[in-house]
């Protein structure tokens, strides 16, 4: 676990050592604030609903952008060989890299705290829904990032990693959306509704933290990190 921590620090500092982190955070803030305030005064409701409802779609592009470097760059530069011949276990590296992007995402989301503060100033919002929304955003973001890390480990081309991650996340997001569910056979609807990335986020966002939703996100993260680990290990397959 010590190795995980070391990798985590190196990767996390890596984000902030380059302009990536700042560009990323600023564009995220500009984008989400714009989309939020566009309708906030119009609806005249003291709620962050509009903000949270766009997050699944914002993450769809931003999370893959955060993770596309993580393995693809190492493969391209050959540093993966340096890293994997150090006395570290594969899963420790996988975990360290994921955690770095995860904590970076949490930092980015915390930068939006002025939004709920503004809303609290001008009105009387449901704080349970706000904290629920943030918790859901962390978890859902984690799922997107795990998919992104996994996609990045499949290729040495960052653009390819980016597109694979968007594609997989998109697929997992839309299977739970109503316009897909409507066209499915009756029996499959609950399964797909459960598998969709967005629905659990909405239900946590209502302020109700259900263990099923937590289990869902933790297992999606676990599953894709497992695949990530497999793809790193695959060099050893005969």
């Amino acid at each position, binding site marked *: 676990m*010590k*190795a995980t921590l*070391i*990798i985590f620090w*190196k990767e996390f500092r*890596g984000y902030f*050592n*380059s302009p990536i982190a700042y560009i990323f955070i600023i564009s995220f803030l500009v984008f989400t604030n714009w989309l939020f305030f566009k309708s906030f005064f119009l609806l005249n409701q003291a709620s962050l609903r509009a903000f949270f409802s766009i997050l699944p779609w914002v993450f769809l592009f931003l999370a893959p952008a955060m993770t596309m470097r993580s393995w693809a760059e190492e493969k391209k*530069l*050959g*540093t*993966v*060989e*340096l890293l*994997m*011949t*150090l*006395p*570290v*276990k594969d899963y420790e590296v996988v975990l360290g890299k994921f955690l770095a992007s995860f904590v970076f995402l949490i930092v980015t989301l915390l930068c939006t705290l002025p939004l709920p503060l503004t809303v609290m100033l001008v009105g009387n919002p449901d704080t349970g829904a706000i904290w629920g929304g943030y918790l859901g955003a962390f978890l859902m973001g984690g799922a997107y990032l795990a998919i992104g890390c996994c996609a990045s480990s499949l290729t040495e081309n960052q653009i390819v990693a980016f597109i694979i991650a968007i594609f997989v996340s998109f697929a997992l997001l839309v299977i739970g959306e109503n316009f897909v569910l409507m066209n499915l056979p009756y029996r499959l609807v609950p399964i797909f509704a459960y598998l969709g990335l967005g629905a659990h986020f909405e239900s946590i966002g209502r302020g109700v933290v259900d263990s099923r939703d937590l289990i869902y996100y933790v297992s999606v993260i676990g599953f894709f990190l497992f695949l990530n680990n497999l793809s790193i290990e695959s*060099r*050893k397959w*005969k």
Partner: protein
Amino acid sequence: MIDVEHISKSFGPTQAVKNVSFNVSKGEVVGFLGPNGAGKSTTMRILTCYLPADEGTARVAGFDVATQSLEVRKCIGYLPENNPLYMEMGVLESLQFIAALRGVPESSRRAKIKQVIEMCGLEPIINKDIDELSKGFRQRLGLAQALIHDPDILILDEPTIGLDPNQIIEIRNLIKSIGKEKTIILSSHILPEVAATCDRVLIINRGEIVGSGTPEELAAMAKGGQTIYVTIRGPLQEVKEKLLSMGTVREISVLGEENGCNRLSLTTDGTAHLCEDIFFLVAQNGWSLSELYQGTVTLEDVFRELTTREA
């Protein structure tokens, strides 16, 4: 220290390593010599546990690379091919990172880092970022990273490739000084380089070991095809005849003529005292000699020799 028994490795239809066996004893400096794609890097990757062998076993410091990979990796310092580095990191930062992952205890980390910085001459660049470094310094940093945990075994994949002649000599001297205490395997495709640093050489071609021995032994194998270049001022016909009558000169070709100076290349059977003999021959006849140069034994010479002998 290193025992390799019958390892093979294929990538799809191409067999990169075929039934290779060798061993390296403690304190030895062994060079892998072979053209690009001969299987040098693959063998090194198997020894460093980056890739598994399809068949055969390899033991490093008593540990099996397949089943005790972590223990093996702990006692090896590895400089991979093309010296991959984390370009966005600082020099000191990257050394700290590798030292931490290598499990160098926090208490001795500073001392160890200081030690490799001195050993590899990194003082002038210690505060720079890696992407600002010249190729020579990058190579030293790669070596420093491999040395940080004071490993017993060093595996260096083409440590001098792409460096200028001065840098090559610096790295070579560095390797030589490290080699006094450690077991080293290094690869190269330049024979003089291997000859200058290694106690023993393994020649690898198409995944197989085609020859092994000390650099002197290998050079001796290739002497049959030695070439000598001379430039003599004198009547061309007579010069040729006299040279051929020496007996050891097999063939003469004229490379050029300028102001009465003939530049010749001589293919010889052996080189013992031949240069001296040529000098005396020229002196006796009252000609003048402005060039006398013995072509260095190249990898190709040894190679041609070894492969034709087998066929």
